[in-house]
């Protein structure tokens, strides 16, 4: 008598079609029925992963990040005070980041193809852009961390800047991850969380909100890490300068 295979048992457990006559065999075979029960007991132990909580406002935050990519106009009440000035800058910043990243990846993907710029030059251009991005991000972090505690704060300027930086940060982070830069990726990941939080938050922070934000920035040493990685990026940029000048 040929018993059911392990795979047949798995498929039967999940209520899927197994091998020919598998169900008929199972009905008449106590041994296979017992094996199926054992499999079910084993799989019942497999717990569903603990999914990090996302609050009721999560969808709104996703929309805030998504909207610039869909080229959907800002809601009217947000446009009036600052968007006419900032939006073109944000679009140009993101466009620049995207172009740099694309050029960088293109060079990595097709290294043997003739390129107008050498790998060193392309890498340096990207490093300059990332360095600038980190400096601008530092400005936001410094202003938030140094704000007086126990007072409400109007963060509309920081919020607008964070809003500009989020999309570019995402591109740089993805590029860093693909390029095997774990330290830079980790800092950009952490930075992005804070930027998204600031960008999606209100213009006016209560003392409690501000204290919580400061605690988040300080507890993980984010400002320090951004400074360190920023200076490392600048160092690498300098190292590439002589080679880039000769190879372009």
């Amino acid at each position, binding site marked *: 008598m040929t018993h059911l295979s392990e*795979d047949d048992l798995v498929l039967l457990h999940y209520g899927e079609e197994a091998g020919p006559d598998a169900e008929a065999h199972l009905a008449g075979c106590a041994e296979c029925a017992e094996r199926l029960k054992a499999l079910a*007991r*084993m*799989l019942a132990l*497999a717990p569903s992963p603990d*999914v990090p909580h*996302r609050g009721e406002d999560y969808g709104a935050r*996703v*929309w805030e990040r*998504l909207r610039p990519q869909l080229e959907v106009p800002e809601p009217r009440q947000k446009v009036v005070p600052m968007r006419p000035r900032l939006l073109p800058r944000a679009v140009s910043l993101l466009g620049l980041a995207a172009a740099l990243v694309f050029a960088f990846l293109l060079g990595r993907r097709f290294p043997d193809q003739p390129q107008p710029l050498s790998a060193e030059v392309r890498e340096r251009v990207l490093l300059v852009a990332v360095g600038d991005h980190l400096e601008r991000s530092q400005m936001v972090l410094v202003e938030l961390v140094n704000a007086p505690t126990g007072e409400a704060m109007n963060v509309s300027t920081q919020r607008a800047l964070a809003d500009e930086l989020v999309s570019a940060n995402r591109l740089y982070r993805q590029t860093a991850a693909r390029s095997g830069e774990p330290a830079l990726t980790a800092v950009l990941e952490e930075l992005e969380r804070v930027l998204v939080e600031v960008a999606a938050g209100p213009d006016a922070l209560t003392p409690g909100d501000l204290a919580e934000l400061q605690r988040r920035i300080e507890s993980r040493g984010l400002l320090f890490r951004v400074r360190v990685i920023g200076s490392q990026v600048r160092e690498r940029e300098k190292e590439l300068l002589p080679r880039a000048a000769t190879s372009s």
Partner: protein
Amino acid sequence: MDDATAVAQARAGDSEAFRLLVERHSRALFKLAYRMTGNEHDAEDVVQEAFLKAYRSLDRFEERSLVGSWLYRIAANCAFDVLRRRQRRDGRLESLDGEDAPEPQAEAPGPDRLALGGDVRRHLDAALERMSPRERAAFVLRHFEGRSVKEIEVALGMDTTAVKQSVCRAVRKAREVLLPLTGAVS
């Protein structure tokens, strides 16, 4: 406004209607993406990417489908892409994803340690990490999400045989870490 109406209005250029879909379905997609990728940041990217793809393919949405299922399929496919990119990035051999690939050697701790430790979740996480993208995606969708083989085929763009094989291979890997525990709890 129901989902179908929101899609129809979004197609006509009403971004607020699409916003409604994003706000309504983001949490469900995040949950799926996190289960498939096991990484919070990747899951965020999957949600973002899924809505972007959905927005760009609004014209291809078939009205007889459920909007939630359509978004779910797009997100599952995006998460599958993340798993495959991660595998390439980690430098693993693509052949490990093939049906003829050898089973990786078990790296799970022995039964004694498992029984003593009792940390099922941690060991299952280790098993999930050892699964190929196909196996992990198919297993998560079948086991945690309760999706049928037919639904998984559509979501991941695989044929029936490949889905079934992937689920079975994934279960074998999960079994290596879970089997010693069945004795401990029975």
